[in-house]
């Protein structure tokens, strides 16, 4: 319960800051920033085939096996996070929650687009912890799955995705911190960094992959 409250606060703070940040930036605009477009990025992104998405089969908090192949035909946004992360992970999970809402509004979430978040910290992120984390961020289980597995089972998956980990002082974990956008044919079409992830551009990328470009 206590952990759940922490995560809820974390999600709330993230949401507040994400909403407030653009206004703060506008308040300090220099003249040379004045031409900024309302939306960043492009509605017509060029999303090359970067390579095949390495397959995986892992376990969700309810103990069910989930494979990347289960998502064939759908666009997948895949993130690597851990629940005790105090830097980019909670912010990017919050941005994914915002994106989830926008996709739901567009009638795309779940049926056409799925989210998968894999923990890189299986020792501390047990099933109950992952479930609390998902709930705190409002993850809709109809389209957003959090996955883990035993360390020996997870290790080759992380290696296949080049998601190395290195323990840092204070319990933090250093890792490449990337998100992957995978098309319905299981091909990586875009890679984002957790630190510079913009869910508005990601929405445009997803729409482009679905053949439904949006504004």
């Amino acid at each position, binding site marked *: 319960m206590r952990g759940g409250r922490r995560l809820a606060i974390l999600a709330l703070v993230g949401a507040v800051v994400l909403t407030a940040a653009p206004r703060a930036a506008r308040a300090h605009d220099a003249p*040379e920033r004045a031409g900024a*477009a309302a939306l960043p990025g492009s509605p017509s992104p060029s999303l090359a085939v970067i390579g095949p998405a390495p397959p995986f089969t892992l376990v969700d908090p309810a103990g069910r096996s989930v494979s990347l192949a289960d998502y064939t035909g759908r666009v997948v946004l895949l993130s690597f996070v851990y629940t005790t992360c*105090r*830097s980019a992970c*909670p912010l990017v999970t919050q941005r994914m929650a915002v994106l989830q809402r926008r996709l739901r509004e567009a009638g795309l979430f779940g049926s056409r687009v799925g989210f998968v978040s894999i923990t890189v910290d299986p020792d501390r992120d047990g099933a109950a912890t992952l479930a609390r984390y998902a709930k705190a961020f409002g993850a809709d289980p109809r389209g957003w799955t959090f996955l883990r597995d035993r360390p020996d089972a997870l290790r080759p998956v992380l290696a296949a995705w080049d998601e190395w980990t290195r323990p840092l002082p204070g319990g933090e974990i250093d890792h490449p911190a990337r998100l992957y956008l995978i098309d319905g044919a299981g091909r990586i079409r875009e890679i984002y960094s957790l630190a510079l992830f913009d869910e508005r551009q990601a929405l445009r990328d997803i729409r482009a992959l679905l053949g439904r470009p949006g504004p």
Partner: protein
Amino acid sequence: MTRRTLLLALLAVIATAGAAVAEVCLSPWVKRLAGPEKYLYVYAVDADAKDNDFLAVVDVNLASPTYGRVVNTVDLGSAGNEPHHMGFTDDRTKIWAGTLLSKRLFILDTATDPAKPRIVKTIDDIGAQTGLHGPHTYYALPGRMLITFLSSADGNPPGGLAEFTNDGQLIRVFKNPANAPYAYDVAVKPELNRMITSSFTPLRNYMKPLAQWDMKDGGNTMLVWDFKERKVVQTLVTDPVPLEVRWSLKPGAAYGWTNSALGDSIWFFARTPAGSFTAKKAADLGKGCLPADLRQSPDDRYLYVSCFMRSEIQAWDVSRPDRPRLHDTLVPGVSPNMMHVTMDGKRMYITNSLLSTMDYSGNFWVRLAHIGPDGRLKMDPFFDVDFTKFPTGPARAHDMLLN
């Protein structure tokens, strides 16, 4: 942890998250160092091109007994490559290092043992893969490497861009347009969705001794790209040979600078309220400077210019971004070229080889300047790494990276 403490901690994390960038002038996607640098990697050209080229590892850990010395060299296994620039992958575990006279490109693992990088992959014929020659700038994207090329595979224009996965698989190639065929540097401003590339000269020219160069066989353009679309949206005209592309480091700031090598000038580019970009000459560096490198201070206050021909480094105050003001000059030794500023903005490592066809001194070194809080530069009299006395003889020290 109390609720209040958690809230404060989260706010602190959020407030600093955007500032967690690596050294200035690296791609914004490169992971930053966890602490002060311990190793300086120096990409070195065997001076007479008879022995193998190499990567030198200089100990720059102040607490180390071997501080200021070359503690390792990584043999590239071949000679005459003209090693030039290199860049970290986004996760800072590998260095991509290319060459300007051969077709080889090396990928080195710097994470397993930072003191002893090792080559994990060699691409022997980059031209066959990409149709391009002369990889120049290595610009990390998430999980990928974006590279500019100075020429087509036959050594003539156009140059272009190629993207690879971090482990060396080619993703796609973009050749420069016919009306702006020369290529050189690249830099992306992600929040603006704009990428700018600059222009130098192709292999057919730079492979010759400088006295034989055709000074008209070079670019005077910068291309503005829609980054997400990878599409050129505008061509800007500058003085001849605009080299480094340096966006302002301020989030959202839609301007930056370049150094025109043959115009001896700094050019300022900026987005207009209408959304297009303009470029104008912003500073005269003095005749005969030949500005070979352009770097920034992390606070966006100063630009540093290396005058290769006049053997000085100039610090320009850009508090007013379109009106740089000369702030300080430094003479580090003959023909300074590459500069590498630490992420705290307090130290600048300097090398003094440009290209084997352009160098006019045989005295090669790596030196260190300290940058004071007032933005003034001062040479460190105790840090002077001699690059003339390797077992294989002198080596031209060019690009640098920190680890």
